[in-house]
């Protein structure tokens, strides 16, 4: 575990554009080990795009990512997963035709060590792994109170429940860095409190480093150790939660976007 030297994650001068339109401009910030870093900002600020860069779904125009001391000009999705970067998506990206349990077990894929032939013939190693995977997935489902849905096809469940499955799938493989994109969206306040508590527990008990995108400022201020505010792809503010609330730039950015939304 190279937890001693340097931050867990460093974003260095990253820029990204889509067909000439800037989504992220020269963005730099650091995420320390074991902290919850909240990424906030108005719609279209580039938050999800940044997570997609960290997962290797998008390739930045310039800049680099430093993850646990290793430098990457671009990530590959599989490489990111192998290095322990877990991800929950903003618009659920679950495997809609599979059961909740199978969705979560799919998240263990990078730990699979059995061959196709072993699986086809149900050889002992394949059976052993299957048993271990199921056990692990059930444990994670329990954490989210999802046991009762284990065998349900995930596409048929309410949105809030799906969001929980999404987080369960992201953490089942014991990531070293967890990226969550609006994990509480679409939940009622009881569900929000419940899931926020689980996120806090994951951070405390498993020492998990978390980057969290969330619009609910109340929850962000309670949960995060560190907040990065984005607006139009630029970093506006970067600091502990206390400094965010009263920052005039932040208020302006949020008010500005709300005015724009009302006007539109």
């Amino acid at each position: 575990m190279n937890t001693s030297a340097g931050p867990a994650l460093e974003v260095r001068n990253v820029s990204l554009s889509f067909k000439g339109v800037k989504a992220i401009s020269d963005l730099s910030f650091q995420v320390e080990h074991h902290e919850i870093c909240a990424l906030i900002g108005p719609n279209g600020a580039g938050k999800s795009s940044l997570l997609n860069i960290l997962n290797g779904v998008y390739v930045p125009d310039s800049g680099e990512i430093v993850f646990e001391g290793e430098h990457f000009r671009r990530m590959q999705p599989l490489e990111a997963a192998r290095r322990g970067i877990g991800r929950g998506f903003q618009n659920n990206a679950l495997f809609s035709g599979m059961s909740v349990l199978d969705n979560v077990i799919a998240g263990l894929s990078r730990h699979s060590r059995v061959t196709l032939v072993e699986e086809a013939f149900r050889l002992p190693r394949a059976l052993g792994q299957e048993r271990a995977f199921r056990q692990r997935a059930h444990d994670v489902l329990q954490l989210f109170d999802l046991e009762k849905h284990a065998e349900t096809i995930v596409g048929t469940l309410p949105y809030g429940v799906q969001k929980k499955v999404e987080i369960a799938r992201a953490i089942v493989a014991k990531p070293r860095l967890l990226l969550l994109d609006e994990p509480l969206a679409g939940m009622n306040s009881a569900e929000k409190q419940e899931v926020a508590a689980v996120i806090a527990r994951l951070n405390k008990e498993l020492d998990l480093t978390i980057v969290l995108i969330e619009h609910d400022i109340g929850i962000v201020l309670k949960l995060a150790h560190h907040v990065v505010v984005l607006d139009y792809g630029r970093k506006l503010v970067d600091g502990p939660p206390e400094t965010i609330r009263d920052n005039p730039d932040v208020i302006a950015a949020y008010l500005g976007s709300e005015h724009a939304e009302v006007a539109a």
Partner: protein
Amino acid sequence: MSEINLPAAAEPVDSIGLKALGAAAAVGLLLAAPFLASEYWINAIIVPFLILSLAGLGLNLLTGYAGQLSLGAGAFMMVGAYATFSLQLRVPDLPLPLALVVAGLIAGAVGLAFGIPSTRIKGFYLIVSTLAAQFFFEWLFLKFPWFYNGNSSATIALSRGLSFFGLEANGPHGRYYLTLGIVALLTLLSLNLIRGQTGRNWMAIRDMDTAAAVIGVPVFRAKLQAFAVSSFILGIAGALWAFAYLGSASVQSFGLTRSYQILFIIIIGGLGTIRGAYLGAAFVSLLPLALDWLFQHLFSGHVDAGLLQNIQKAIFGILIIWFLIKEPEGLARLLGLRRAQGARRRLFPS
């Protein structure tokens, strides 16, 4: 099965008893079938039905489970048939079952090669790659006489007939049991794959391939595995089609029409279900008989064979469109064999 200890929270006893009884009855029926059905039914209906089911199963792993659309089923069947022929001819010491396995492996390797483009292209465009396989092998096996041992009709047949570790299997019963055994074994192995990590990887790619890669599913490897396993099964199905059903085959036995037929089987039967292949194959095998019977009775024998064929094609066409639009899970869903669920299979993922 009464000596098995039931786990505490298992299904009610009579449900298990009924299932076991049903399974035993099905196995008994399958084993006794040759003695219940006429020789015509075995030769012309049941054996081809089993082989088409196997081919449907092979394609369903690729298209229904892994979401990779293929029009190359005929090509991979062809490779299996020609490989079996070559092996039996040129490696006479290799017993037929092993030759079938090796032929399946060859077909699997070929399928894997033609699956490589799938790692870059998706959906509709993948058809082009699999179609290329179809046309390439039709050309290859006709162009070089070595593949059909230079005989004047350009057909392939096993000169020593069918045998299974010393048991001769040339009669209708022998061919039935040979086919049934292979189909049952490969179905079982496929089920094991589907229920394990391999199947989950395939379905993850089918449902959402970007997310699959991000959460650590080895997309590239799993896609190639799907092509290889699918073609392995199709290859063995092709060999059975050529030698257990037709007796002698040619390139035409595995033309584009065959590829379409196998695809229709899984669309009608149900994409992404194991039983879908069987239901679809049963439908495809029985529809001509049913129509024939119907017309015989309605018009007392005065039916033009050409007309009958055209009606059959029209019915297929309408059904395919209907199933694609209304019921992507096919007969398997309609017959209530699959839990009614919201998730839908799509041939052309967006």
